[in-house]
């Protein structure tokens, strides 16, 4: 809030008094005929628009906002976004003429807000630079361009085999407790200094879980470029329903405006935004509750018929804008929780078909110690390959196929122990590469270090090492290069490809390090 001093009191007063509208207002009014379960049925309001913001005049003239949902011949069904206990039958409802909007702006960075954009972190009011509609029609083909820049999630298994580009929609899917949120949080942490604004939308989660996430982001200095939108399990279904749309609306402010807050253009580039929706299954459940109480016909798994459209229109707002429009991007990382690995349930199949690929996390891999528990066999990124840097393509181009061949051989080799040398070598390499892809939480890896790690594996430097020493070898090798040969890491980062010179130098350095590496610790 702007501080009022003796110098500016005159200007502040004038501004505030000018904002007061003393003109006569003409509105359409209706009457509440039924209220309950966060839903109101309203008589009248024949001119209400779908999705229009409604004002309910409750007890003591308290204003409660609602969202017009069902427009019927004689009545309107609306969901309430505020305290429903103040509303009763016969209360007055007014149309507002505009749809729900959320405040947005640069001051939202570092803050935790509810889906209406109100701060919930106790750090005082937020100065909004504008507002964005919660429901917004995604830009068309002309305003877009293909995905061509990488996000760099900082996770070896993902950046090497399931690369994600800025403007892509990549689903993170898996059972409970398989590390879905961890991948999203790692990505946010790794975005530091990469001109990527992050928005984490928590839907239907425990408030304590969200507090943990915020605490983690603060600990790693990631909150300064992050907005957390929180609709916890205690919030009403309508708030949980609009939370992802609110999050993306706040993100859109940054892609359509440059760093100076002015509209993005060819000369004033838009920003890059990453939106994590954690998770859309809970949003679908909230929408199902709303729809059933609004008496909409239930469909498969009792979800309403338009639940596909709910998610498709949300994810369609992920975008890579054309250069003419400022080249900003909004990357969407929706999360879906499956039950017992069942990806053929309604919501998972819907979101899989909408997104540009999925990162599939599996419980059994998680408990085998393969973390992140990404099943690289069925995980895919449909457009991210174009956004991968050349150096990564050079080292990881065949990694996916090699690992697939390894898994096939591994299954086959369980039937007998009499294997030829080539097969044994392949199994040996596969086991080490799989081990190499393991990574702890909150330790994102820069892309140049990822390239070096995979390069070392591809070149066979790990083949003679015991499996248990692979991770230590990787860590110590990277430490060694950072300390003694930082120039080569820098060369990979700047040139973005492995030239013959770099390859020769890398081989020499890794061989040199391996000689001094002690297998026994």
């Amino acid at each position, binding site marked *: *809030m*702007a501080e009022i001093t003796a110098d500016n009191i005159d200007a502040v007063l004038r*501004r*505030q008094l000018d*904002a*007061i*509208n*003393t003109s*006569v*207002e*003409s*509105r*359409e*009014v*209706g*009457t509440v*005929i039924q209220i309950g379960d966060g839903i109101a049925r309203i*008589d*009248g*309001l*024949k*001119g209400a628009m779908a999705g229009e913001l409604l004002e309910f005049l409750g007890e003591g*003239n308290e*204003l409660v906002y609602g969202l017009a949902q069902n427009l019927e*011949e*004689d009545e309107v069904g609306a969901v309430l976004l505020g305290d429903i206990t103040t509303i*009763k*039958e*016969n209360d007055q409802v*007014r149309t507002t003429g505009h749809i729900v909007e959320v405040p947005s702006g640069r001051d939202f960075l570092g803050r935790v807000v509810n889906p209406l954009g109100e701060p919930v972190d106790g750090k005082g*009011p937020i*100065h909004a630079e504008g507002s964005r509609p919660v429901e917004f029609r995604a830009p068309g083909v002309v305003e877009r361009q293909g995905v061509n820049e990488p996000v760099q999630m900082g996770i070896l298994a993902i950046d090497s085999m399931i690369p994600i580009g800025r403007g892509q929609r990549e689903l993170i899917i898996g059972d409970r407790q398989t590390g879905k949120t961890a991948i999203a949080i790692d990505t946010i942490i790794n975005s530091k200094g990469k001109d990527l604004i992050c928005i984490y939308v928590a839907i239907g989660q425990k408030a304590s879980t969200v507090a943990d996430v915020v605490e983690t982001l603060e600990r790693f200095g990631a909150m300064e470029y992050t907005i957390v939108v929180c609709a916890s399990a205690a919030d009403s279904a309508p708030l949980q329903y609009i939370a992802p749309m609110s999050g993306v609306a706040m993100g859109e402010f940054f892609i359509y405006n440059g760093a100076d807050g002015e509209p993005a253009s060819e000369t004033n580039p838009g920003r890059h935004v990453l939106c994590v929706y954690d998770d859309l299954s809970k949003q679908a459940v909230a929408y199902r509750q709303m729809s059933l109480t609004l008496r909409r016909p239930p469909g498969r798994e009792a979800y309403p018929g338009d639940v596909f459209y709910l998610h498709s229109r949300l994810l369609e707002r992920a975008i890579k804008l054309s250069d003419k429009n400022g080249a900003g991007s909004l990357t969407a990382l929706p999360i879906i929780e499956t039950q017992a690995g069942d990806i053929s349930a309604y919501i998972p199949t819907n979101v899989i078909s909408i997104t540009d690929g999925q990162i599939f996390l599996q419980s059994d891999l998680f408990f085998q110690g393969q973390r992140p528990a990404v099943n690289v066999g069925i995980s895919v990124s449909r457009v991210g390959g174009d956004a991968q840097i050349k150096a990564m393509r050079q080292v990881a181009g065949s990694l996916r196929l090699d690992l697939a061949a390894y898994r096939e051989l591994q299954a086959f080799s369980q039937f007998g122990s009499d294997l030829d040398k080539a097969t044994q070598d392949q199994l040996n390499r596969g086991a080490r590469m799989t081990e190499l892809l393991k990574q702890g939480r909150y330790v994102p890896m820069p892309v140049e270090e990822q390239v070096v790690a995979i390069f070392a594996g591809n070149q066979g430097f790990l083949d003679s090492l015991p499996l248990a020493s692979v991770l230590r070898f990787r860590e110590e090798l990277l430490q060694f290069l950072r300390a003694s040969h930082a120039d080569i890491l820098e060369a990979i980062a700047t040139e973005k490809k492995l030239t013959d010179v770099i390859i020769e130098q890398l081989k020499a350095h890794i061989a040199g390090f391996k000689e001094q590496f002690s297998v026994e610790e």
Partner: protein
Amino acid sequence: MKTSAVNIRAKAEVYARVLLEAAQASDRVFVLTGELAELLATVRGSLELRSALSEATFPEQAKKAIIAEIFSDYAPELLATFEVMVERGDLATLPRVCEFYYALAEEALGAIILDVSTVVPLDEELRQQIITKYSSQLGRGVLLREYIDPDLIGGIVLASHGKRIDASVSSQLENARQVLSLSQ
């Protein structure tokens, strides 16, 4: 088979037409528009009343006694129509009956009904001003239904056909309160 919404509308139209004919006979068409609106608000505002009147096992005589007790001041033709609605379990048609009756009454009266709320009673001059202004704007005669509402503090509120023009002091103060509480 007709849907329930269509049924409700058909029934409501019958009730409204009968009520209008009875009102025309007793020359109370305009008075009944106000009484019908009040009756609807009373029924909507009380869950107990709605439950009692729509409970099938509750004796008809008891329902009639309730209606007579609560709505004793209302025109007899309105009470008679309402009793039939309750007896036949058509309470849900009441909002639509109001709607149809309004339309039919305005047609019969050749005028638009305008609800006017003020803090003090309208004087004759202001009444004529409102009638002249809105008659010329709407191209039809205007009949005023006047209400006194001290909560408005001052000014005037006009409402008709679900549209409301609010020039009251209370809403302007509320607007100012909102602007000041949200301003940075």
